[in-house]
């Protein structure tokens, strides 16, 4: 069996709200293998985003340990974590988070601008990423000149530009209509078939249906984890 790409061990995240404590995560253990397409579902406030932020090295657990490629994120310095995010993770957000005054091309090049050492083929890689999401002809458009679906595809191209091992998408279709949502999910499925590990948070069953594996959260715990035949 392949060693897991991601391995979480008994993760907790506690927020102190005055006297009371809120457990955003409460003992989550999880393994994800390279090349998987995972959907995380669960009711609002169940801890899905909290987990995803930890997997992406944006947040640290109160206890427990996350290893990605065998490396412990908990012991990494801020600088090393930034490099880890840059090289290993590609983020896709519900609100796209594109820079409104920059062209699609500039937006997509963002991860490569922070790559050390600076790659000399940034333009080529940006073009390739835009091609992968089918927006090669929109490179000079600004986000305001694009539809919602197109904006999210630019965001996906941006996540891909740095050639990450894992794509983390927190409700990538949350701001899109169902037809566009399907197109985006089909795109993610396609990318997964090219070898990228994808983890998607969603509320919608239609979206989760594209994944091979569905993990359900409730109150900071995993209540089910099963494989399914993808749509």
């Amino acid at each position: 069996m392949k060693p897991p790409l991601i391995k979480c061990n008994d993760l907790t995240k506690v927020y102190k709200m005055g006297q009371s404590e809120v457990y955003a995560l409460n003992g989550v253990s999880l393994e994800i293998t390279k090349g998987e397409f995972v959907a995380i579902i669960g009711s609002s406030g169940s801890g899905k985003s909290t987990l995803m932020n930890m997997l992406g090295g944006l947040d640290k657990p109160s206890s427990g340990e996350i290893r990605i490629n065998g490396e412990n994120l908990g012991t990494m310095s801020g600088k090393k974590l930034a490099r880890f995010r840059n090289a290993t993770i590609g983020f896709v957000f519900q609100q796209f988070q594109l820079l409104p005054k920059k062209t699609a091309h500039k937006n997509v090049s963002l991860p490569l601008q922070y790559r050390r050492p600076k790659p000399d083929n940034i333009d080529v890689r940006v073009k390739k990423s835009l091609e992968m999401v089918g927006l090669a002809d929109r490179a000079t458009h600004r986000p305001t000149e694009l539809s919602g679906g197109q904006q999210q595809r630019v965001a996906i191209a941006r996540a891909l530009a740095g050639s990450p091992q894992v794509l983390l998408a927190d409700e990538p279709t949350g701001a899109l209509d169902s037809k566009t949502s399907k197109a985006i999910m089909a795109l993610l499925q396609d990318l997964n078939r090219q070898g990228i590990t994808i983890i998607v948070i969603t509320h919608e069953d239609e979206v989760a249906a594209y994944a091979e594996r569905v993990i359900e959260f409730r109150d900071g715990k995993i209540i089910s984890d099963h494989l399914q035949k993808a749509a």
Partner: protein
Amino acid sequence: MSPFTTLGLAASSLIERPLRTLLTSLGIIIGVAAVYAMLSIGEGTKREVEKQLSSMASRSFTIWPDWNRRRTSQSKPSFPFKESDVDEIRNIAGVFAATGSLQRNSTTISTEIGDTAANFLGVDPDYLKSGGQEMLAGENISYADIEQSAPVVVISDGIQKTLFKNQDPIGLSIKVNNIAFTVKGVTTAPDSNISFGGNADMFVWAPTSSARNRVIGGNPYVRNHIRSIRVIGDIGANFPKIEQEINIIMRRSRDIKTGAPPDYRIFSSRGWQERNAKSQKTISYLLAAMGAISLLVGGVGVMNIMLVSVTERTREIGLRMAMGAQKSDIMSQFLTEAILICVLSGLIGLGAGYGLSQISLGSEEIKMVFSPKIALLSFGSALLIGVIFGFLPARRAARLNPIEALRHE
């Protein structure tokens, strides 16, 4: 992120918000222009004062017998000076020139064309040279003229105009109180702050000996007497020291007992000029401080805008962090932006300040000069303002929590 990319990023963020950039830079532009203008006014004044202090007039002492003493019926009248006094003073260290002269204030000078009242002086060759006067035609009085008591004179251009109707007067005859002299040279009137009364343009200079023998007359007590002595110090000489030495020489020569008041007076314009210079300096410091304050206010404006900008771009910062930006990348992005705006405004401000100084060149009151030192100083202060006032907002940006930043509305 490479420094070049960071610079491009800072530049594009300034370009993307043109109005804000303009308004922010205005404070710095005005501040730098003010600092530049103030410093160069100060520098201009300083140079003007230095020029004044190194001019002949302010480097000179004039020694006169004390007229008051004679009037208040002392037992002994005030003696004139001797030519040997001049020789002794000339040997004091730091003395550039010492020259004795005789003077009669209203003499009648006449030619065939007309007559005028003028100042008539008996002088030695050093007198005209040390007065900073320029020979316009002919020659200066020579030691041979003094030796021979030659009936020659040098006239001021004022005399030339009035009594020779601007024709070449060299070799022509001129009468001083009806005594005939030959014009030997023409020179400018002395640029002196010692008043010669109403005839400030009208001068006739003869060799000391001829003036004494032919016009002014001898003195009953002193052979070869001198009416006043002018002493000129070297540039940068120790003037109080020279004055002290003059006193020693004069007291010995005039046999003044220790403790007794001197029967002569030493005049110099240096004292008030130095006081003047000091107050000019104070004023220019004050002006520079005002410029610095406006620069400071401009700097606070930059900080304010940068803080607003960081708040406004919180989501951008969160995004950049999620994309792998390190704290140092964010820090340098915002710091570069602040420095860039200050540097650009600094350059514009320098231009404005320079323009201002060119305009003020027309006015006599304000003297401004361009000096690279001042330009560098005012530009450097803009740079410094950028670093100082950009630091806090940049640090705030770098310390943002990426998750919260991404959620920021």
